[in-house]
């Protein structure tokens, strides 16, 4: 047992913390919420120069060759800073799908570009039913002749409006008895004829899109992994992305604490700092407990992924716990911050909105408790 980061991870953490402090202040976050693209090329290039785009990508494909725990450390700081933009979609979501499921050719073609910051990825997964469950994947790919034709509508696709490559989950068979069968993944250039994406107006101003596919052509070589056997890969991506979201949420939890503690020490009511009142202290103690337990659950799961151990249980426990715990921590933060924290100009609202979005991303508590129930043999 060792609950501490190693020296390199600590260095990465400090570097990322300082980097985001400088490059991603709350004014920038707010600006990007309103911005249609939601990121700037300038910051994107700077992050690429740090080697972060390719943090998960093996060196053989131009990446930094870090492990999942390193990525969790980086995402923790990204979450702390409320980092906007397609970093998660590219460096975690899309990259994981490619690294875990791509052919040698696909990896050699795409991953070096991702590492350099020259290619933005995303995964087009959820649809009208609003769930990550396999039975909700209904976008259809038919193979009348030499190529597939893909038709359907995806919803809540992160950053599709700026992505270069979409990894699209489709049905290549009618929904069979086991909905996990018959799912395939295609790598599609976003500029393909028949793809249209439209930004959804979201609470957090993060960029989720509606993407329509109208008889989009795809070839066998565009398949990511085997035809009809896409779900196991997608499930793995789901669990890893869920843990990665937990890292972001944990970082957000740290930021909430950093806003709350000075406030309750300084704010005077009834002639005393409000942090001296037990009612407030109990809320604060609960925030700290929610935050620290979130961190432990996240890093335990991230560590297991890094070590190549089984991680299905830990990943789902982590997402179930952290989704709920950070939501409660933010709510308590609002409670002790009082009216001030309700103001748009205060940063706490940014974290309220972003952690809500993160709670739903890759399955909320209920969703992961059901996955865990299956892992438990219930």
């Amino acid at each position, binding site marked *: *047992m*060792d*609950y*501490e*980061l*190693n020296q390199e*991870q600590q260095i990465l953490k400090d570097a990322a913390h300082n980097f985001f402090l400088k490059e991603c202040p709350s004014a920038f976050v707010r600006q990007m919420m309103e911005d249609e693209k939601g990121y700037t090329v300038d910051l994107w290039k700077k992050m690429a120069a740090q080697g972060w785009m390719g943090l998960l990508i093996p060196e053989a494909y131009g990446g930094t060759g870090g492990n999942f*725990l390193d990525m969790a450390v980086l995402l923790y700081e990204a979450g702390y800073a409320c980092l906007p933009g397609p970093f998660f979609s590219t460096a975690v979501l899309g990259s994981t799908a490619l690294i875990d499921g791509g052919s040698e050719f696909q990896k050699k073609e795409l991953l070096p570009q991702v590492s350099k910051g020259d290619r933005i990825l995303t995964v087009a997964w959820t649809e009208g039913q609003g769930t990550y469950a396999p039975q909700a994947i209904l976008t259809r790919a038919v193979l009348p002749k030499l190529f597939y034709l893909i038709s359907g509508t995806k919803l809540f696709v992160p950053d599709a409006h700026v992505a270069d490559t979409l990894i699209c989950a489709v049905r290549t068979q009618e929904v069979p008895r086991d909905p996990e069968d018959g799912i395939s993944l295609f790598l599609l250039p976003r500029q393909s004829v028949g793809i249209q994406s439209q930004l959804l107006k979201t609470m957090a101003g993060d960029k989720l899109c509606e993407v329509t596919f109208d008889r989009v052509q795809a070839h066998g070589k565009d398949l990511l992994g085997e035809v009809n056997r896409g779900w196991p890969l997608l499930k793995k991506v789901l669990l890893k992305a869920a843990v990665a979201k937990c890292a972001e949420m944990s970082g957000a939890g740290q930021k909430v*604490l950093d806003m709350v*503690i000075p406030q*309750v*020490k300084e704010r005077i009511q009834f002639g*005393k*700092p409000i*942090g*001296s*009142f*037990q009612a*407030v*202290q*109990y809320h*604060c*103690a*609960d925030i*700290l*407990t929610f935050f*620290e*337990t979130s961190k*432990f*659950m996240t*890093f*335990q799961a991230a*560590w*297991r992924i890094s*070590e190549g*151990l089984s991680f299905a249980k*830990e990943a789902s*426990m982590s997402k*179930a*716990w952290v989704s709920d715990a950070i939501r409660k921590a933010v709510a308590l933060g609002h409670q002790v911050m009082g009216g001030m924290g309700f103001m748009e100009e205060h940063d706490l609202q940014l974290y309220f909105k972003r952690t809500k979005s993160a709670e739903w991303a890759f399955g909320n508590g*209920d969703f*992961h*408790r*059901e996955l*865990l*129930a299956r892992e*438990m*043999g*219930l």
Partner: protein
Amino acid sequence: MNFAFTKEEEALIKEVRSFIGQERTPELIAESRDLGLIYGGPEARKFMKKFAAHGWLTPNWPKEYGGLGSSEIMTYLIRDEMAYAELPYIFVGAHMAGPTIMRVGSEEMKKKFLPPLARGELEFALGYTEPQAGSDLVSLTMRAEEKGDFFLVNGQKTFNTHCHVADYHWLAARTDLQAPKHKGVSLMVVPLNTPGITIRPLITMAFWRTNEVIYDNVMVPKGNLVGEKNKGFYYVMSALDFERMVPPGAYRKLFEEIVEYAKETKVGGAPLSKDPLIRQKLAQMATELDVANLLYYQLADILDKGKIPNYQSSMEKLFVTEVFQHITQTGMEVLGLYGQLKKGSKWAPLSGKVELFHRWSVVETIYAGTSEIQKNIIALRGMGLPRG
């Protein structure tokens, strides 16, 4: 970071588990439940003779005092294993008094007490709480008056749980009336058969026993003083940083039994475990237990790194004991009407264990510092908030 046990740790746990499997008798388990999982009963002492001979009762103690000089992780693992097996795992001597004697006791006291404590031959009872000094422990009024070479002790303690099965009282008494409250308390070791001590039972709603203890002109030799006079309150408080920890094992076992019950019990033609609501609840408990484990082993990791847990032990106690209550509540929800049936009732599921633990769990968030006290400590020491 590393969230796994080493090969040696795994191997030791296997050995401990198989030993317990062989030596654990129905009589021992019955006694353990009757006593509320505290150590000191005759069956437990019989068992402990062999168990402690391996050094497993105090593995983290130095070899000269009967330990193995092992890591804290090893110690935490074994304690959790004992709790999981429903062995008595609440020790005052080996886990609380002993370590304090090791830190502040005289050489003579160490020699006299530590080896037999490590062998499980002696048990202590905590003598802290009084009718008017619960959470506000520093207000205790039991008086120890200096008379030549002994203290004359008078007063009353309450909720001193081990007293009816222990050999010694680990007594906190006031030795200075003039000094500020926290600078006038001393710790002393008192044989519980000393004339003038009366132990009366208080029966809990979990049906195990705690005690009130009356001291009427009890003579305690000065040599029984632990460490320095008037430093007792500091010793008590600093000991809590080292020793406040709650192994989740006993309730993890209960949870596993509830899960099995849910899988095997059919309602409306399908197992309870297929009910979406029950699946959610059981998965939530599994998750909370995992969090509890991480908080528990974090304490060992802090100690093994040569540091002293601070607010972290309060967080562990707070969280783990609340999980205990969630587990029995979940068990009650899974069992439905059957949940109220006691042991001995012919329809009682799991021999009435859920019903028993449900009553029992009420005290978990109260003893050894209530949840509210733990939250105060977290706020003051973990976050540096100002005192009220």
